């Protein structure tokens, strides 16, 4: 069912040029390939289908029905899960996750584009050294810094607030996005800058009026990936948030595990499924960008 529309859509567009002799073998081969691919797809998507299916099953069905799909769909798990943690509703966790994710997105877009413009376009003493340091931080594992950063943010009184998760992003600490934007800005013709300079634009006006608008695709990529990364992030949120009213979704979901009885599986799955919806929506909207954009940008160089 899933493959049919695309096969229909692409059939008239694919005239299959190769030699007539090679054609029958190719078709047979491609049939085998499709069978293998569909089988792999079933395996690969089974856990997601299982998550969705189970989230709509009643407790009895969860225990007895082996099928992915429930016999009768019940939304009860969603209602139960939403208020399943005593004293706090999932709306709170959702709000907290949105605050952190939006903060990170804004921080990354603003600070990384500023730094990237300096590296990509401006000449200043020691630029090579700073650029090398920036690349160095790209490979630095996050876990190495978590203890001293915790001590730092603790002394600022920021623990148990979203600040340690957001503020560093306003300081261009996500070197990956700086690098991504540097690469992108290098592709923008320099003649545009020169024309702007002749018209009397200084570096600041050139950045805001010329380079930044043309960097939009890289800014969108940064937005999408910052959001997904932060939404799924667990480690730093676990470290910094320890009051239940401050919890984000991943930390909130964990509470279900602590209270896990067979009865809590349904609500737990319902909330898990719900927590993935924003990421999935981003994926639907920016599918091409996500699948083609960032991953290949590193090798085209």
């Amino acid at each position: 069912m899933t493959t049919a529309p695309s096969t229909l859509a692409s059939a008239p567009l694919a005239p299959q040029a190769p030699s007539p002799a090679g054609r029958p073998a190719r078709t047979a081969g491609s049939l085998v390939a499709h069978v293998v691919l569909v089988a792999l797809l079933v395996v690969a998507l089974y856990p997601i289908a299982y998550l969705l299916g189970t989230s709509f099953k009643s407790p009895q069905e969860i225990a007895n029905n082996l099928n992915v799909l429930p016999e009768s769909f019940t939304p009860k798990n969603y209602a139960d899960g939403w208020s399943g943690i005593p004293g706090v509703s999932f709306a709170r966790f959702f709000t907290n996750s949105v605050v952190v994710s939006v903060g990170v997105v804004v921080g990354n877009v603003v600070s990384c584009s500023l730094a990237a413009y300096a590296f990509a376009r401006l000449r200043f003493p020691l630029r090579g050294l700073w650029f090398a340091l920036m690349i160095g931080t790209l490979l630095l594992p996050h876990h190495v810094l978590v203890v001293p950063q915790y001590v730092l943010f603790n002394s600022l009184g920021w623990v148990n607030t979203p600040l340690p998760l957001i503020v560093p992003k306003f300081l261009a600490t996500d070197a990956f996005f700086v690098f991504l934007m540097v690469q992108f800005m290098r592709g923008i013709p320099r003649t545009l800058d020169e024309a702007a300079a002749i018209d009397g634009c200084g570096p600041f006006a050139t950045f805001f009026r010329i380079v930044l608008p043309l960097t939009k695709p890289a800014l969108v990529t940064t937005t999408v990936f910052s959001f997904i990364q932060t939404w799924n992030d667990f480690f730093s949120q676990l470290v910094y948030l320890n009051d239940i009213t401050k919890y984000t979704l991943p930390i909130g979901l964990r509470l279900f595990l602590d209270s896990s009885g067979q009865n809590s599986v349904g609500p737990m799955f319902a909330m898990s499924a719900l927590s993935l919806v924003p990421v999935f929506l981003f994926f639907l909207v920016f599918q091409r960008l996500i699948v083609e954009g960032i991953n290949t940008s590193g090798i085209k160089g």
Partner: protein
Amino acid sequence: MADTASRPPRVSARRAARPPAPGGSPRRRREAVAGYTFLIPWFIGLFGITLFPMLYSLYLSFTDYDLLQSPQWIGLENYVRMLTDDPQYWNSVKATLVFALVSVPLKLAVALGVALLLYRDRRGVGLYRALFYVPSLLGGSVAVAIVWQTLFGGQGAINEILGIFGIGGRSWITNPSTALGTLVLLAAWQFGAPMVIFLAGLKQIPAEMFEAGSLDGAGRFTQFWHITLPMLSPVLFFNLVLETIAGFQGFTAAFVISGGTGGPADSTLLYTLYLYLRGFGDFQMGYASAMAWGFLLVLGVITAIVFRSGSLWVHYADEGEH
């Protein structure tokens, strides 16, 4: 600074090139000021959030520090304890090495295999590619780790499926010999991201190479070994570096599946999880810092080995003949 231009023979070519023409000088200087202005946030981040904390963590690694009392200097004690007197530490090293050494090659092999299947035949590639990517998109989340824990649990669906084939079930999660395996499977399941990179690399291999190959009588496997694989080696290298670094930093799934303990019997105690437990479970900040530095050194060595090995097997098309 201003008089460097008047003494050209004494300064390096690079510095002399900077402020020579009287007309260009103010503009250059304005550009330098602008450059540093644009970098202000980045500088604060580099020094305040990265470099200073790194040095501070190096200092902490030689101390006993619980966040309440000020750090007590204890010299190399943390490192000595870590290397000679903490069996849990070595359990975590072992779990991490096994996890990375199995999951990374497995993930890359599946990714390459599926990419080759998809590349052959262009029908529906877009849809397949998007669907295979979905696990990579969601796989790092707590939600999927929860699903995994249920799937591989004693009453999980995996056992039901195995039961159909007459294979006896067990709780894969609570058995020390299989728990890490479930984490490996979860990592390999997210093969979509490297697959997408392989596909992009495959597209860049010129079709004439295969035509020339088949004219010379090369079969599919010969073509794969002598054309596809060498041409794809830079992309394979890129994926290997990315996945190795990611593989050593796995945390979420290990935490969720083991209920935050790294159990059973430390079998899922990945390095970062153990670091978390020491640092934020019992607030041994000094010990956790020593662990972090050990991690940085080992990961640095491993990355260096991967890069070194690259010069042996990575083939760059523009390198020319040897």
